[in-house]
């Protein structure tokens, strides 16, 4: 057994775990909402869509395709100037959360779009045939019909966001990623590293389980 400082680090550890949860929660909520809106916009402006518009669709696609492939660790740095404008600072958790939210938004938008295109155009036509407005169709047909896969998509995103928060630890973000790096990796304290790992694994498992069971309930399988 190696020497470990885990005994003295518990208070720091719990606050780091709390920070991770906090970052994930905000990112999933804000990024999830913005991603849903962007994904909906991608979907409805497609050819044959409810608000089909080639120019809008092209612009949105270029935007998403530009930002989405940027590796997150670089994106945090790249987003710094914008973070200063929006959240007032380029460093620390607010800036990290800003970068997380924007990155998550672009990622989520594609997942949302992919799930929405699986909605049978026939049910949309059925809704149109009874005189439903386009906005109503999006709200009462498109989203409910795709809800099961959407929940699974968001579950996938949740795991990805946990991953991204850990990466953020490298460039000045708080949370378990930073904790494992600073007190585990740099102090050669494997016990500390693995404690962080286990908590992250548990967090991911709990999220995955909740998402899967919610999706199962929605799909009634």
């Amino acid at each position: 057994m190696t020497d470990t400082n885990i005994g003295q680090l518990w208070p720091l550890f719990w606050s780091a775990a709390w920070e991770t949860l906090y970052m994930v929660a905000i990112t999933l909520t804000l990024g999830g909402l913005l991603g849903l809106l962007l994904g909906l916009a991608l979907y409805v402006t497609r050819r044959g869509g409810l608000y089909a518009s080639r120019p809008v669709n092209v612009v949105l696609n270029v935007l998403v395709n530009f930002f989405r492939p940027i590796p997150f660790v670089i994106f945090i740095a790249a987003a710094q100037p914008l973070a200063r404008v929006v959240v007032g600072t380029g460093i620390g958790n607010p800036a990290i959360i800003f970068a997380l939210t924007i990155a998550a938004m672009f990622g989520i938008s594609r997942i949302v779009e992919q799930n929405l295109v699986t909605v049978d155009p026939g049910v949309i036509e059925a809704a149109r045939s009874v005189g439903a407005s386009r906005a109503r169709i999006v709200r009462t047909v498109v989203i409910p019909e795709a809800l099961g896969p959407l929940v699974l998509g968001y579950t996938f995103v949740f795991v990805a966001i946990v991953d991204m928060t850990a990466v953020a630890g490298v460039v000045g973000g708080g949370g378990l990623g930073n904790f494992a790096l600073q007190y585990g990796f740099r102090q050669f304290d494997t016990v500390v590293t693995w404690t962080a790992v286990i908590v992250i694994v548990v967090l991911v498992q709990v999220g995955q389980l909740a998402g899967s069971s919610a999706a199962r309930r929605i799909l009634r399988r």
Partner: protein
Amino acid sequence: MPLVEMTDVHKTFPAARGGAAVEAIRGVDLAVEAGEIVGIVGYSGAGKSTLVRLINALETTTSGSVRIDGREITTLGERALREVRLGIGMVFQQFNLFGSRTVWGNIAYPLEVAGVPRAEQNRRISDLLHFVGLADKAHSHVEELSGGQKQRVGIARALATNPKLLLADEATSALDPETTQEVLALLRRVNRELGITIVVITHEMDVVRSLAHRVVVMEAGRIVEEGPVVRVLSDPQQQVTRRFVATIVDDEPGAEALAALHERHAGRFVKLAFRGDEVRQSDVFAVLLDHGVRFELVFGGIEEVQGETFGNLTLALDGDPAAVDAAVDAVRVLVPLKELAR
């Protein structure tokens, strides 16, 4: 005033990427009277699906006029069109039910769109469920239903807002023959008991025969023939119509069948066309017997459609050639007769 009146309607779909523009409808005039059931038949791509979607403005016309209950709809804005659509029910080949809703929820949807108060919605849905015979399935999810049950939900949903007109797009094409009969019977009740006008698109002549009063035949975006079902079935004018009619009514043997029949049967072959009840088969057969001609029925059949009888019978006539000649001349006076040469 017809319930639906289309005048010189054209619909061209703009060119898809790399493709050419598609002229789906090329000058259609169509009138549907209140209370009737019109069957629109045609092969895939004839334009019949597009045509019905112009009636409830799911598609917009390129040119021409579409009047619903006297109101021109081609110039209406989206909001006004939504109102028009509320008064037109539509059922689909693949049912297009909302998987995220129960049977009850599916039927409730048009009522929610129409802003009907909840209490009235409940009454209406309950009535409709009884009408289509699914009262016990109210809270089932649609994936638990059989195809026939799904279509009955589709019909109930289409009727929810008390439309005057029901559009049925291949409503029975995804169903087995028995279930098809059930759904057709339900559509007949919709017409008879509720007085709802029905436009049904199909490629199955059986559906036309058992449901429609009038049939419209489409080919390449045009109406090529139309008329009362009995008239069209008994006396099709166009090639495409004859092909459709031949799927359910025996006309005359084709070349191969004819050759095979000649192998087995001696004598001259004639096809007799019986229309209505004015000339009885027994009268015709009596003439043949009077001339000393022996005959055999080798091909054909008699149909009964909406109380009218018609059919085509191919007979092999055997006997003294002079007697057969005389008999053929005598029969020709009674019914249309066609020689089927070897």
